[in-house]
């Protein structure tokens, strides 16, 4: 299952890239991510309580950042396993300067297994889109909050 899109943020590309690779910010952006502990460079152990509505599951797994080319490109690999099955996601982020801000072109591929694959197929696409939307909305908030990058004259 694939999703793709572009998300624009009114912030410099370096700032966006920084945020997108900051484990603390990522933890808040990855939906339901309760902990993200570093185990190696760009590799983290994660606990996620993910789901939509009343359908929720706890997943344990890894988040890995790969192919990092600051500030234009990286790949995030998330895999988690829990009672409802497993989730494996790959997200490719390409950052481009646009209209004084940054356009994040993303391509995500999500693979699921277990119960969620067996019974959830009619909702998986919508769920993935919802989780992606949550990710970027939180990212907006995070970047908006940390405004040290803003020139003093720019209104907040």
């Amino acid at each position, binding site marked *: 299952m694939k999703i793709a899109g572009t998300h624009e943020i009114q912030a410099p590309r370096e700032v966006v890239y920084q945020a997108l690779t900051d484990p603390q910010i990522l933890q808040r952006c990855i939906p339901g991510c309760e902990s993200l502990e570093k185990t190696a460079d760009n590799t983290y152990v994660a606990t996620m309580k993910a789901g939509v509505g009343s359908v929720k599951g706890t997943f344990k797994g890894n988040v890995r950042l790969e192919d990092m080319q600051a500030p234009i490109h990286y790949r995030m690999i998330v895999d988690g396993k829990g*009672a409802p*099955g*497993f989730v494996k996601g790959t997200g490719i982020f390409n950052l481009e300067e646009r209209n004084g801000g940054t356009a994040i072109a993303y391509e995500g591929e999500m*693979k*699921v*297994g*277990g*119960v969620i*694959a*067996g*019974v959830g*197929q*009619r909702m998986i696409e919508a769920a993935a889109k919802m989780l992606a939307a949550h990710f970027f909305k939180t990212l907006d908030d995070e970047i908006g909050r940390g405004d040290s990058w803003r020139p003093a004259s720019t209104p907040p």
Partner: protein
Amino acid sequence: MSKYVGERIKRTEDPRLIKGLAHYVDDIRLPDTLHVAFVRSIYAHARIKAIDTTEAANSAGVVAVYTGKDVAEKVGPVPCAAALPDLKVPDYRVLATDKALFVGHPIAAVVATDRYVARDAADLISVDYEELPAVVDVEQAAQGGALVHESFGDNIAYKLTSGEGDIEAAMKSADRTVSQKMVHQRLAPIAMEPRGVLARYFPGEEELTVWSSTQIPHLLRTQLALMIGIPENKLRVITPEVGGGFGSKLNVYAEEALLGWISMQLGKPVKWIESRRENVQATIHGRAQVGTVEVGCRNDGTITGLRYDVVADLGAYHQLLTPAIPTLTGLMLSGAYKIPAIQMNVTGVFTNKMSTDAYRGAGRPEATYVVERVMDIVAAELKMDPVEVRRRNFPKANEFPFHTATGLDYDSGDYEAALDKALDLSGFKSLRAAQAKARAEGKLMGIGISSYVEICALGPSQAMPAGGWESATVRIEPTGKVTVMTGASPHGQGQETSFAQIAADELGVDINDVTVIHGDTAIVQYGIGTFGSRATAVGGTAVLIAIQKLKEKAAKIAAHMMQCDASSVAFEAGKYSRQAATAAAAGTSEPVVPVGEAPAGALPEPQTNGRTSLTIQEIALAAHIAKEIPPDTEPGLSATYFFEPKNFTFPFGTHICVVEIDKDTGAVKIVKYVAVDDCGKVINPMLVDGQVHGGIVQSIGQALYEEVVYDDQGQLVTGELMDYALPKASQVPWFETDRTETPSPVNPLGVKGVGEAGTIGATPAIVNAVVDALAPYGVKHLDMPLRPEKIWRIIKS
């Protein structure tokens, strides 16, 4: 004399089923029963690096946890009975050992004091998987790439070529050749009752009883005895009520052996009832062939040859008959036609999916679909009427027995008669007129025909992996009640009724005096089972001949009791009578029989003195009391017969389907359905109608709705009935059914079998109708299921 055979006798099984008083496996409750839950693979293909069962094993209420390592040396592999040249047979352990090869592959079993604890504990087992590339696409798998079984070096289980005649010459001599690729999608049988097993070991007696929802109690007993290593005569298999099988319970499953073995380990009853989710994952699937058919024809529509190259998706392992199913396709590729040369080249291919095996029709629906689609494709190619193409290639009624280029001898038939009757019944001419009118109005209406032949009454033992005969014991009890024991244990077909009809007529007794017993290996003589539309033709015949044997003995006793020569005793309507000539010689008329006062608990004495006629039930009593029987005759009145059929039977018929397609959405609506089936002599028309109706419904399922879908990782994404679309009552049209009746010469009942006719004959009729409706768009073929989107895309383009 026929009082019951041929009549619409209501099923004697139904009251208990309707009232909820029947006993399925899960209705059998034994004290101290332990319950089993399985951990099943969530990957299609993965190495099992480690399994941590500690937390589960330490949970309150958990009695034992078993993994593949614990049982690999204790329980033998799941058996495959199909014997094909150079067949690769993977070692199929009851629990996965080092690798999981399909989603749903059992990895561990938890045994607990109740099913809730067992299920909770299953979640506490942690399996460390290393995911491996899944082999999903059957055509790619045949070419190479990732392997399901590394040691085999490729994914090819076997290759087989079958057929007779010079196919190359036939193609060369044809005016035209046409070829078409066809997909027979993977289906799930979805019996209403999922599988279930209850096993109870008696440590003192060293006996094991296994209750299982199966179609083959005796074959299962033999196989389980071998797998578990218990003497076969210490193992009893009981098949209680079975809520459908459709072939999926014509098998020996890992869970059946494992439960038996666990009960022996723990000395307690253990039970497992399959959930629907497990049922979709780990009960066999059906169909799953991708093939290309090439047909040669002359310009007048005569078929000169047919070649079918097919890859069959076998799944990861062989279940009981997995590799044999596609070979049945090869047998039936002549369909209802004279085709001088036929060749099938089949490649059986391993994939990381559940095994395919017999699902209602088992290889024959694929053949019929190929042949009946071909008839329409040829008609379109030659711009001929599909009806005429069929007629041109039918063997005539006087050409039977008819030898096909697939090596079969069709027993009897009049294919044109069934076709004509179906055309009449459907009002075919006016249907074509209505279609022309609809087309003129821009509407999409299609008419599809399918003239099928199927192979039933499986079968002569020479052609079967484990015996093709069937057994019956018929006993008349001292009280005159008739007990029929059949080896053909039913799973919904109604043999308790139809076999009672046969017995009651043949014995001249009231049908209510007959009880049919089946499905208990400790009571019933060895038998084969109910599948392959064989129960009546083979098992019913065994009942008939057992009765005839019994009657020979009864006649001897009757003669002795009536003090006459056996040759002067005649049987009619349940009575043995002394023929007039000898009666006159004896000079007696029938006296009034005084009712004897029997002491309490003693059997009533037969009052036979001086009688000139005796009912068979009276003779039964005398045979048990054994005071008035000939000195050279065994007491008791029972007979057993094992009937070995000399050939298969070949039912046939024509189905006609009319569809309308919603141009806006592509949705197909079946507006008329006519079925004329010829299943030989009919024992109970109501049961035949039921079989035909049910079969057509499953065909509608295949044609329009059903498909087991594995995604590119081998995940089973149609894992519940939320996504796997079985047709519901509201999606099914009214059926107009009729019959022609061409008796089979193969058995004395003249019956052919009807259990699979619907799923064999109907699917192509529906698809032909849809393709016909879409003919204005130049459509020649469409693969099933014909979901609305697929059709909308054609209309749109």
